[in-house]
C-alpha cells in the first residue's frame, strides 16, 4: 500500500453500508488501483475530479465498448495516466454462475484494476480501469471465454431486461429471451457506431417496469395482456380473512375504478373494459390475482434523460404487440428497423429519436415508419388548432370552380 495517508476516504470506511473505499483497497496490491485511490483522495481534497477526455481507444473491429479515460495530473499519478473502462455485455437478467463470475474476475485481475461495477447503469458489467495496451488482449481473452463487449458511442447500447419469467409471476412474455435475441441480432449495430447518437432498448415484463424502461430507453418494451385478470376467488377470501383492507389498499387506489370488492361475499371483481392493467391490484394480492393469458407488450419510444431538450418518458406507439418467439420477433424487428432507418436519415448529430420526433412532429414519424395513429398514443388530443393536412385530404379545385 502507498505510504500516502487518505484521511478523507478513511471516513468512508466507517458506517454500516458496504464501503466502496474498502472495495478499492481490496485491490490495492495492484499499483494502478492503489494510485486510483490516491487520486480519489486528491479529488476529495480538491472537490473536483481529475480525469479528462483524451484520444479515442478501442479494440479491433469495434467502435464502442471502451471508454477512454486519462488523468489530468499524470506527472503526479503516472500509473493512472490511462484508466479506461471496458463494458462487458451482461447475460440477460444479470444471472451468473459462480464460475462465470470467477472467470470475469480472473481476466480482469490479469488485465485491469480489479475494480468493477456490477453493473453499469445501462446494464453492462463494467470493468473499471486499464491501460491502452491491455485493451486488445483483455478483449481477446474475454471473447475466448464467451464474453463480448457492450455498446458505447453513437450506436445501439446494450439492451437489458427484468428478471421476468426466470423468477417473476408477473412476466407477460419472455423478457430474457427477447433481450438475448435482440442483442444477438443487432451485434453490428451494437459494436459499430454509425448512428446520429446512442439508442437504448429496455425490456420489462409488466407495467411495474422493474428496469425503468419507460424512463431510460429510447425503445421501451413493457409487457401487458389483452384479456382479463385471473382471479382466484378462494385466495381473495383468504386475504379478506387475514384482515387486509382490500377496499382501502386495493380498490380505492385503482386508477380507473375498474375493480370492486364486495365485503359481504368477500368477492373481488374486475371490469375488464376499464382496467388499464396498471398492476396495482395484482401487486397487492399476488396470491389471488394474476395477469391475463393473452399476453404481449406495449411498445413505447423516445425515453431519455435530461440532455438536450430535458428528459422524456417514452411514448406509446404500439398499444399491444404479440411478441412471437417462433418467428424471431419479426414484427418487432421490422418496426425497429424502420425506426432506425428514419432516425438515421433525419436526425442531426447527437439527436435522440425522441428529440427528432418532437422536432419533426409525431405525425411525420408515424407516417414514415408506417404506424396508424391511435388514441392510446396520447394523454389527450391537441388543444391547439395548428394541424396539418396531407395534399390528398384536400378538396381539389375543379376548373371553373372559382368565382
Amino acid at each position, binding site marked *: 500500500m502507498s505510504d500516502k495517508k487518505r484521511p478523507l476516504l478513511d471516513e*468512508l470506511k466507517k458506517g454500516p453500508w458496504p464501503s466502496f473505499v474498502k*472495495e478499492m483497497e481490496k485491490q490495492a496490491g495492484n499499483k494502478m488501483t492503489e494510485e486510483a485511490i490516491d487520486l480519489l483522495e486528491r479529488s476529495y481534497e480538491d472537490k473536483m475530479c481529475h480525469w479528462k477526455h483524451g484520444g479515442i481507444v478501442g479494440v479491433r473491429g469495434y467502435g464502442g465498448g471502451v471508454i477512454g479515460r486519462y488523468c489530468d495530473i499524470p506527472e503526479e499519478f503516472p500509473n493512472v495516466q490511462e484508466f479506461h473502462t471496458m463494458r462487458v455485455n451482461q447475460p440477460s437478467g444479470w444471472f451468473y454462475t459462480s464460475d462465470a463470475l470467477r472467470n470475469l474476475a480472473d481476466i480482469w485481475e490479469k488485465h485491469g484494476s*480489479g475494480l468493477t461495477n456490477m453493473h453499469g447503469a445501462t446494464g453492462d458489467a463494467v470493468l473499471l480501469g486499464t491501460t491502452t495496451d491491455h485493451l486488445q488482449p483483455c478483449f481477446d481473452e474475454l471473447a*475466448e471465454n464467451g*464474453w463480448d463487449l457492450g455498446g458505447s458511442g453513437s450506436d445501439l447500447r446494450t439492451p437489458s431486461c427484468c428478471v421476468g419469467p426466470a423468477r417473476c409471476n408477473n412476466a407477460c412474455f419472455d423478457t430474457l429471451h427477447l433481450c438475448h435475441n435482440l442483442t444477438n441480432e443487432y451485434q453490428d449495430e451494437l459494436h459499430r457506431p454509425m448512428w446520429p447518437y446512442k439508442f437504448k432498448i429496455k425490456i420489462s415484463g409488466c407495467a*411495474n417496469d422493474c428496469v425503468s424502461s419507460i424512463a431510460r430507453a429510447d425503445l421501451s418494451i413493457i409487457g401487458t395482456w389483452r384479456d382479463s385478470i385471473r382471479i382466484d376467488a378462494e385466495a381473495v377470501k383468504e386475504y379478506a380473512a387475514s384482515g387486509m383492507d382490500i377496499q382501502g389498499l386495493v380498490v380505492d387506489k385503482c386508477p380507473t375504478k375498474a375493480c370492486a370488492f364486495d365485503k359481504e361475499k368477500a368477492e373481488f371483481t374486475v371490469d375488464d373494459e376499464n382496467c388499464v392493467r396498471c398492476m396495482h391490484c395484482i401487486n397487492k394480492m*399476488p396470491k389471488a390475482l394474476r395477469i391475463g393469458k393473452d399476453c404481449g407488450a406495449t411498445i413505447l419510444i423516445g425515453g431519455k434523460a435530461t*440532455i438536450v431538450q*430535458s428528459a422524456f418518458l417514452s411514448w406509446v406507439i404500439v398499444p399491444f404487440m404479440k411478441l412471437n418467439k417462433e418467428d424471431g420477433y419479426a414484427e418487432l424487428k421490422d418496426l425497429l428497423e424502420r425506426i432506425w432507418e428514419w432516425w438515421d436519415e433525419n436526425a442531426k448529430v447527437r439527436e435522440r429519436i425522441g428529440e427528432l420526433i418532437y422536432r419533426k412532429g409525431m405525425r411525420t414519424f408515424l407516417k414514415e415508419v408506417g404506424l396508424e395513429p391511435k388514441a392510446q398514443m396520447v394523454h389527450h388530443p391537441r388543444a391547439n388548432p395548428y394541424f396539418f393536412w396531407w395534399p390528398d385530404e384536400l378538396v381539389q379545385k375543379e376548373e371553373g370552380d372559382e368565382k
Partner: protein
Amino acid sequence: MVAKGRTDIGPPHYEEMLPQIIKDNYGKWKYFERIKPGVLKHVSETGDELYTVRAGSPRLLSITSLREFADIADKYCNGHLRFTSRHNVEFLVDDPEKVEPLIAELEERGWPVGGTGNCLNNIIHTQGWIHCHSAATDASGPVKAVMDELFDYFKTDDLPAKLKISMACCLNMCGAVHCSDIAFVGIHRTIPKIDDEGVAKNCEIPNVIAACPTGAIRPNPKAKSVSVNEEKCMYCGNCYTVCPSMKIIDPENDGLAIFVGGKVSNARSGPSFSRLAIPWVPNNPPRWDELVSAIKNLVEIWVKNAKKGERYGEWIERIGWEKFFEIAELPFTDKHIDDFIFSVPTFRTTTNFKYTK
C-alpha cells in the same frame, strides 16, 4: 490463447447461468411472498419454492468480492446468483433450510440483507470522481454517506411504500435519476471557461453550438472559437461533454441539487418526473453532511405524513406542492419555477391552491 479477431459473439446465453430450479419453473411462477426484509419466496405452479436473499452492494465491487460472492453461491445456491436492476446481489436458494445461515454469513461478511418490498432500495448511481471527467460531484461517496444514515430503512419494510433514491454526478444523468422518489444530482453553477486555442484546435464548433440547450453559445470567429452568453447559460455542461476546452468545473460552486416525487412504475398513477426540492447543497467531502441531512429530512417527513401505500410523489400530489414546501420547511425560490421549453404547462392555471405560511 485466442483466435484473434473473434467478434460479435454476443453475451453468454442466460440459460447457462440459470439454476436448475429456475429452469424447471421458468415462466411458471404463480405468486410470491415477502418473508421478511431482503427475503422473497416465489412459488411455482409445480409447487416448487424458490427463496431469494437480496444483499446490498456498493456496486463498485472488487474482484475479491466477486469471488467471495461466487464462494457463497457455491455454498448455498448450487453456484448461482444474480444482480438486480438496482445493483443489489441476489442469492437464489432452493432449500429453505439454507436461508437463515446464508443471511447470517452475508451479514457477518458485511453484506447487509434487505431492500425488498417497502424498504429503502439501493441507491442507483454513477461514476463520479472515480472515473468520469464530467462529474460535478463524487457518486460513491455521497451514496455511501446517505446509505449509512438511512441504513435502518434498508432493513425494515414498513415504509409507506417503496423508496427509490437515485444519484447522478452530472446533468448527463447516467443514473437516470429523473423519475425517482428522491434524486440527487451533481450540478455546476458557473459558466464554462473557454480555452480559445483548445476550442479552435480540438472542437467542432457547429456541434458545440448545437449542444447548448438554451442557445447560449455563439461563434467567436476572431478567435476561431466560441463565446458564451452569461444570461442564457444554465451550466449544464453539455458543451464540455462535446468540447473539453469548455471547462465547467468550479470546486466551490459545484454541488448537488435534490429532486423528489418521481416514479417509474405504472402502478396506480403513471410514471412521473422528480421535481426540484433543493436547488443546491455544497460539495462537502468526505461525508457530504448537508446533503445527508437534507435527504434524511425529506425521508422523515414522508414517513411521518404519507398514508400507507403512497409513494413520495403520490403523497405530494395529494397534499399539494405548496404544502410539501411548507412541511419540508424548504424555501420556494425562482429556481423551482421552470423556464425551459415545456415550462408553460407547469404554471398554475387555477385558483385552486392552498395557503401556506
